[in-house]
């Protein structure tokens, strides 16, 4: 069958296609509004989608192994909350951030062990920890946001700028570069692709498949926790509903960026561009003053069209 061969050849091109979709969409929006293509708007948009994009970096690695992580939103929310609690209790900002990231680690280890040691399907395992995390947030907050006092130096993480670029965007860029290198140039990265491509063959070749899986879940949760800490630093308020429902958006970002939920295929860069595309559309519908009730339908439709064009283009332009 041509099918598989074909998909494989595209792997390296997918990011490129989504990038083109991103640019075309941007041009389209700026045809109708002068407010889109301004430095401040673009920076604002980037900051807005940076959290989804950061989380999608972890997600895409999980997806490449053939798994899924539904608990990213909970890990993000709970990490922000625990950071806030630490500030509230008077701990130093380093301790607070460490505690937040620790939440991510705990999530990741739990997910990873449920999946590798017990053998739960990733969907069930991470849906369970999603509920547990969300429930813990309600138990802690009773639905009331936590707004402790924080030092100014902490707010830099979420609110600062490096030149014209917001710090969360800088963090996103750094993570993108690091994880692109990890996924394409290191042993670990190759093993992630091998695990998702053919788990048995990988195991027989000596890849420690269980360890690889554990690692990607830990990475995914910890990266999400980092996103949670950044979100808290940005809003200085730990919302009980923070991160709620974000898993679908994060997975969508990875999938738009070319990752296959069947595993083996995907890229960090693609996922980040996918998140950017979603963020751009969300910004566009507000700038274009589209009726709020129609926004969701339009967002859905535009994403479908963008990805369809991408898929069809590949099919046509592909090989014989």
């Amino acid at each position, binding site marked *: 069958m041509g099918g598989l061969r074909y998909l494989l050849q595209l792997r390296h091109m997918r990011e490129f296609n989504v990038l083109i979709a991103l640019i075309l969409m941007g041009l389209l929006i700026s045809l109708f509004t002068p407010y889109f293509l301004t430095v401040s708007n673009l920076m604002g948009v980037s900051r*807005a989608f940076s959290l989804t994009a950061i989380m999608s970096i972890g997600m895409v690695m999980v997806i490449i192994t053939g798994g899924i992580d539904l608990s990213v939103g909970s890990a993000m929310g709970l990490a922000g909350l625990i950071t806030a609690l630490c500030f509230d209790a008077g701990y130093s900002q380093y301790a607070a951030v460490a505690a937040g990231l620790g939440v991510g680690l705990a999530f990741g280890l739990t997910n990873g062990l449920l999946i590798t040691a017990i053998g739960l399907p990733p969907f069930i395992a991470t849906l369970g920890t999603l509920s547990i995390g969300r429930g813990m947030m309600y138990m802690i907050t009773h*639905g*009331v946001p936590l707004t402790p006092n924080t030092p100014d130096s902490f707010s830099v993480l979420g609110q600062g700028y490096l030149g014209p670029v917001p710090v969360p965007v800088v963090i996103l860029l750094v993570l993108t570069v690091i994880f692109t290198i990890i996924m394409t140039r290191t042993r670990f990265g190759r093993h992630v692709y091998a695990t998702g491509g053919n788990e048995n063959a990988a195991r027989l070749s000596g890849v420690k498949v269980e360890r690889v899986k554990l690692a990607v879940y830990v990475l995914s949760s910890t990266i999400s926790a980092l996103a949670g800490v950044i979100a808290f630093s940005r809003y200085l*308020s730990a919302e009980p509903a923070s991160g709620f429902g974000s898993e679908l958006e994060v997975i969508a970002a990875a999938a738009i960026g070319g990752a296959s939920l069947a595993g083996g295929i995907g890229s960090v860069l693609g996922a980040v561009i996918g998140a950017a595309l979603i963020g751009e559309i969300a910004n566009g519908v507000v*700038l274009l*003053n589209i009726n709020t009730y129609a926004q969701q339908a339009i967002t859905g439709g535009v994403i479908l069209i963008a990805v369809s064009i991408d898929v069809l283009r590949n099919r046509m332009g592909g090989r014989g």
Partner: protein
Amino acid sequence: QDITVAVVPKVAVPFFDDCNTGAAEAAKELGVKYQWVVPANTQGSTQVKIIEDLMARHVDGIAISVNEPKSVEGIIKQATDAGIKVLTFDSDSANSGRSMYIGTINKQAGVTMGNAMAEALGGKGEVAIVTGQLGASNLNERIDGVKEALQAYPDIKIVATEGTEDDLARAVSVTEALLRGHPNLAGIFGISQVGGPAVAKVLAQQEFADKKGKLKVYAFDDLPDTIKGVKEGFINGIMVQRPVTMGKLAVEHLVAQIKGEETDPKDIDTGVTVVTADNLGSYTK
């Protein structure tokens, strides 16, 4: 004998936490068993399931803030028929045969908000509405109230209405985009609880420094960040309801009905207070 009452809010938000405080206090004072059951989402069907479960548990009284008036009608009738006392608070289901309603009239609160804004704007300018879940009926009632009030001011134009799913992050980016897309915007209504904090945070950014004081902002609910926004001058006024009072009254009236002390209950309006920089320290919930 043992009396058990259950209080069912719409969702887990600060407003209802205050209700819980009031209700729990009243229950303790009256020496009755008290159960606080928060639905996992805002769909009518979820509250129907909860009432069913509470009926199975044989509670004696239920106070509920209704997410969707029509869908609970049947089950409230069933509960009443089964001898359970049911009243509504904060959000009503008028045709359900509940014994009474305790709370604010949301539409009225919206009118108050609209008038306050109109006054602050001197009767003209572009305004935008930032709401929460698009499907939440209390928020929609408030919006109706705002629109009704603004009808008297033809020079005030509502240029946008945006939903935020009650997510602060989304609210912040929507507000930013609103300010960029409507440079002449003169006022923002924060219809749901995220509106106040979101606008205050956006206005605190360097990019929008020139908006401070010029942009009139009215919000709902006294979250810490909203209060802070008032103190720092980003927010002109907050519509504050009386959740603690609502919770307290709800339990008191339920128990009175169960004991047969109250036979002809009447609706109670708990009213709203417009909190501004002037009365920030002195209002009661």
